[in-house]
């Protein structure tokens, strides 16, 4: 099912991205990748810590 609201949100995101210069978009890409990887590693650490807790 197509959501009109989801489509509008996607188009707004696309328009916001296109207002940046190509160089700014690549900088944003790098920052986004770093944040996502740090988030993933934090999740893994929490998962490992919770497994090591006594039940």
């Amino acid at each position, binding site marked *: 099912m197509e959501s009109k609201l989801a489509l509008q949100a996607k188009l707004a995101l*696309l328009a916001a991205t296109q207002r940046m210069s190509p160089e700014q*978009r*690549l900088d*944003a*890409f790098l920052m986004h*990748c770093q944040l996502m990887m740090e988030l993933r590693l934090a999740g893994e650490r929490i998962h490992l810590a919770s497994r090591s807790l006594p039940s």
Partner: protein
Amino acid sequence: MRSTGVGQSALLLLDAIAVLTSERVDYAVIGAMAASIYGVVRASIDADAILSLGAQKQSDLERTFRAAGFQTALRLGDADDPIPAVLQLTDRFENRVDLLVGLRGLEPDAFARAVEVQFQGVALRVIGREDFIAMKVFAGGAEGLSDAKSAITAAGGQLDLALLRRLTQRFGRAASDSLERLLNGP
């Protein structure tokens, strides 16, 4: 090496490009970095580029990268694989660069159509918009088609539709049909 931690595959790519430039190997950045330029910014574990390189030079290039301090792995595709080989580069933070050694269907002129984009003080060669969309349509899948659709929408009236259709046709009938669905869809 520029990378100082995780999530910096784009910086590892810059190191790789320095080697490619000194070896006079033509390249074009593709994948999520190109998607960030033509559509929406999305995260990716790796950074990708496609090379204009003969099969006989793959091993030499791998040796050059290894001598330059990269961790390398050269993976060869099957006979029916549209990608003949991938040279994978990694660093100690598990950042990863995939260098595609060719792509069946890609027009050789794609390297001449690549556009220059500044990134961290380096002039990167990025695959052209129409070549990018054609490749993404060919790649298919939810992500590939979403990237292609975003690039089409963002381009507005700037797309060279005749070029796009011609480039996509080179990847086969299924790719052409997918492109028409994207062009005519909501």
